[in-house]
């Protein structure tokens, strides 16, 4: 049943966002900390669990995959409702701060990506050796 996939996705999202809120409260922050990321991890876990049990039906897949393919149109809709006028009107301070930080971050992506690629065989071994480092260390760090 397709609705089961949609419901699974909804459940993962709700639990993840709730946990993100809890994490925010625990850390004393007025924001959701990693809620979507936690929801994604839940969905990944649910998928492998269903797969292992042999219960990943085509209906469930359809329900989730439909929404993942709707992602780009949703992003387009999101772009269409940004406050672009404010961004344009902000003036030089806004442009300078945004451009410089962006360029530096792009450079870091290039650096980190290359660094990652060059030692892929090494980090493979490391990843294999440390089962105590679960899927999202970025989550536990947050």
């Amino acid at each position, binding site marked *: 049943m397709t609705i089961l996939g949609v419901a699974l996705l909804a459940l993962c999202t709700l639990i993840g966002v709730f946990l993100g809120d809890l*994490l925010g409260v625990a850390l004393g922050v007025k924001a959701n*900390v990693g809620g979507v990321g936690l929801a*994604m991890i839940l969905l990944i876990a649910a998928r492998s669990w269903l797969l292992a049990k042999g219960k990943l039906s085509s209906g469930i897949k359809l329900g989730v995959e439909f929404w993942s393919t709707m992602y*780009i149109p949703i992003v387009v809709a999101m772009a269409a409702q940004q406050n672009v006028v*404010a961004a344009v009107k902000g003036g030089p301070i806004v442009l300078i*701060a945004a451009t410089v930080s*962006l360029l530096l971050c792009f450079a870091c992506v290039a650096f980190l990506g290359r660094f990652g690629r060059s030692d892929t065989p090494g980090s493979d071994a490391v990843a294999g050796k440390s089962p105590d480092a679960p899927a999202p260390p*970025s989550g536990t760090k947050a």
Partner: protein
Amino acid sequence: MLQMIEHVFIEQSLVAAFAVVGGLMLVSNLAARHLTAGRVHGSAIAIVLGLVLAYVAGTYTGGKKGVADLPVFAGIGLMGGAMLRDFAIVATAFEVDVVEARRAGILGIVALALGTIIPFIVGALTAVAFGYTDAVSITTIGAGAVTYIVGPVTGAALGADSAVMALSIATGVTKAVMVMVGTPLVAKLIGLDNPRSAMAFGGLMGTVSGVAGGLAATDPKLVPYGALTATFHTGIGCLVGPSIFYLIVRAIVG
């Protein structure tokens, strides 16, 4: 006649949004294929078109929500709002390669740290260069360079001036828009073509909307990896902005 069509659009707002965005995607894909010979991704054109429409609508209505401020396009606000956006982002995790994600774990943490510290320093220095001398304003503008949510959250926590807050939000929004538009252009140059660098990218850029839009326009397969790290970015920024960062800035400027 026109009024009746308008009525249908308002009553069926979300359905109308599906039709409008679908049309926009179709036009963009055709443009990508015939005008750029497939060199530019159709979704990149669609996102830029969306931003242009948001600008046009924003100047026309004077509102803050782009096209969604026009009653006939209110459904775009629902379709592209945080609820469905997060729902669809989570769905993309279904195609995540667990091994890849795990492998990039430490890289993701490094990227998150750099992606919070570097923009903050740049934003703070820019604020100083433009004559701001008080720790609250400098911190708020610096936090805005992290993401447009970290800026106002930090500003509100520190009691910043509303003009400074607006500047801080504008910095974050500009960054998000630039990430959406700029990413496909520099993707090759910075090696953004694999899950590992996408996770680094998500952690560094932070802004979920920017990362999502930028990666969607570059290679939709990379979206979940970028989103996975980016989603922690804002939370971390909100955590350190009004606390550690503020204390450091105050210690420096007195």
